[in-house]
């Protein structure tokens, strides 16, 4: 048995895709022209698959902050917070994030993935229960494997099902920790947090909310879905990322729990990895300030969401259930999705190709993410090109063709 034999089916699927088009998971942005445009294979390409929701990656203030930190603190911290010490900017960012969320504590992680991995695997111990949404992000599933708790899945975004599962565990003595996401990354749908918070209170459970895709996007001040639905008090731990609205890389967790800081000396994905470079911390800190003082970025984002979502819908594409910065076009087969994706790239539009098993219910998706910095002209062009290819491939306009 070879070392990689157990990946045979993945390898085969990947080979089949590559035989038809250039590797869709190996796209190279040769040059970045702006947050929404890159040169890919000599062609200027509109980027509609970046998660760069507020378009802050080229914000002059963020870039200047990063430059200054680079000069003042050097290229990297060369070690972990716990072994090699914290730099002042790391603590400052933690304070600003705690202030933004109105919480007493905040910890910064090196990636969003590690924030989930660390927080979830540490909070629930051997006698405890983790209740996770069936469509949870890989980082949540991996946290379950790293941790020692008993793991129970509930049906996606189904508060009633969560209630049922907690009821079955009612006589078990351990803590119950519910994990959910604000906006789900593939279809862009939002959790019914109000209902889930009710269930949580009823069973005396704890709740971890991952606002990765909703931070800076939802809520009066951009804190996310919990703010939008008015249930922040029920969210015991807020996890988030710097790699979406804040335009860099990293993750965090904010909480009011009085013993929260204990995590710094027991949470392995925090302790045993190098901390973020000071320049990244600086650009993130500035991006958070921009997020707070420029609500118009959010307004612009939602205007753009409407343009793209309504545009696709007008042409008859099957979309995710809810309007949001993630706009997913559902296609009937992976084969069709691969061809569609390639045709879009050939015409200068980059979206994400999402195939099973990374997608819910085995759907094949063209996953688009909207940016506040997209111009109306860019989005109109994306809709027009997508509709044209959709018609050519018979994805939309069937009835017209039948009539003709």
């Amino acid at each position, binding site marked *: 048995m070879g070392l990689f034999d157990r990946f045979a089916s993945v390898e085969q699927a990947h080979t089949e895709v590559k035989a038809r088009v250039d590797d869709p998971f190996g796209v190279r942005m040769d040059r970045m022209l702006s947050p929404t445009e890159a040169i890919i294979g000599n062609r200027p390409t509109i980027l509609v698959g970046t998660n760069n929701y507020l378009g802050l990656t080229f914000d002059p203030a963020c870039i200047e902050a990063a430059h200054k930190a680079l000069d003042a603190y050097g290229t990297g911290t060369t070690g972990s917070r716990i072994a090699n010490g914290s730099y002042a900017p790391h603590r400052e960012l933690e304070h600003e994030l705690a202030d933004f969320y109105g919480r007493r504590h905040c910890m910064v992680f090196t990636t969003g993935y590690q924030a989930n991995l660390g927080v979830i695997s540490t909070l629930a111990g051997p006698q405890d229960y983790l209740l996770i949404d*069936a469509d949870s992000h890989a980082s949540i599933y991996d946290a379950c494997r790293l941790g020692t708790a008993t*793991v*129970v899945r509930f049906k996606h975004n189904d508060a009633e099902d969560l209630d049922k599962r907690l009821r*079955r565990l009612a006589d078990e003595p351990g803590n119950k920790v519910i994990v959910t996401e604000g906006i789900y990354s593939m279809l862009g749908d939002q959790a019914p947090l109000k209902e889930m918070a009710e269930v949580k209170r009823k069973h005396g459970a704890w709740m971890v909310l991952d606002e990765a895709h909703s931070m800076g996007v939802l809520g009066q001040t951009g804190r996310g879905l919990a703010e939008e639905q008015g249930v922040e008090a029920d969210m015991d731990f807020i996890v988030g990322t710097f790699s979406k609205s804040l335009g860099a890389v990293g993750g965090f967790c904010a909480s009011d729990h009085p013993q929260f800081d204990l995590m710094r000396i027991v949470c392995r994905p925090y302790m045993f990895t190098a901390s973020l470079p000071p320049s990244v911390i600086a650009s993130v800190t500035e991006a958070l300030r921009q997020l707070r003082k420029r609500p118009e970025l959010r307004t612009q984002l939602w205007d753009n969401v409407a343009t793209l979502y309504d545009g696709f819908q007008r042409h008859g594409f099957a979309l995710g259930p809810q309007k949001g910065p993630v706009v997913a076009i559902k296609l009937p087969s992976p084969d069709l999705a691969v061809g569609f994706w390639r045709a879009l790239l050939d015409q200068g539009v980059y979206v994400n190709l999402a195939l099973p098993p990374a997608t819910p219910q085995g759907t094949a998706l063209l996953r688009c993410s909207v940016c506040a910095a997209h111009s109306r002209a860019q989005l109109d062009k994306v809709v027009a090109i997508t509709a044209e290819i959709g018609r050519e491939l018979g994805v939309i306009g069937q009835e017209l063709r039948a009539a003709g």
Partner: protein
Amino acid sequence: MGLMEREDVAVFEQVVALLEPFRKAEGAITRETDISQDLKLDSLAVMDLMMELEETFDVTIPLNLVAEIRTVGDLAEAIRRR
């Protein structure tokens, strides 16, 4: 057949009935049937199947057990022990 055995058979039969719609390969399902090899169910499908079974039997089957469950017999046993 004692009560335990009758219970065991009843659970097994229900598991087989629930496996039918998930089944992609041909052939009768026995206790020795390997869920991934013979029924061609991937790990995601197995997890979804477990959710169905939790519903049917009103039990909790932790995700942690998925790695240990290889055959249909293992699956029935996991439910019976709950």
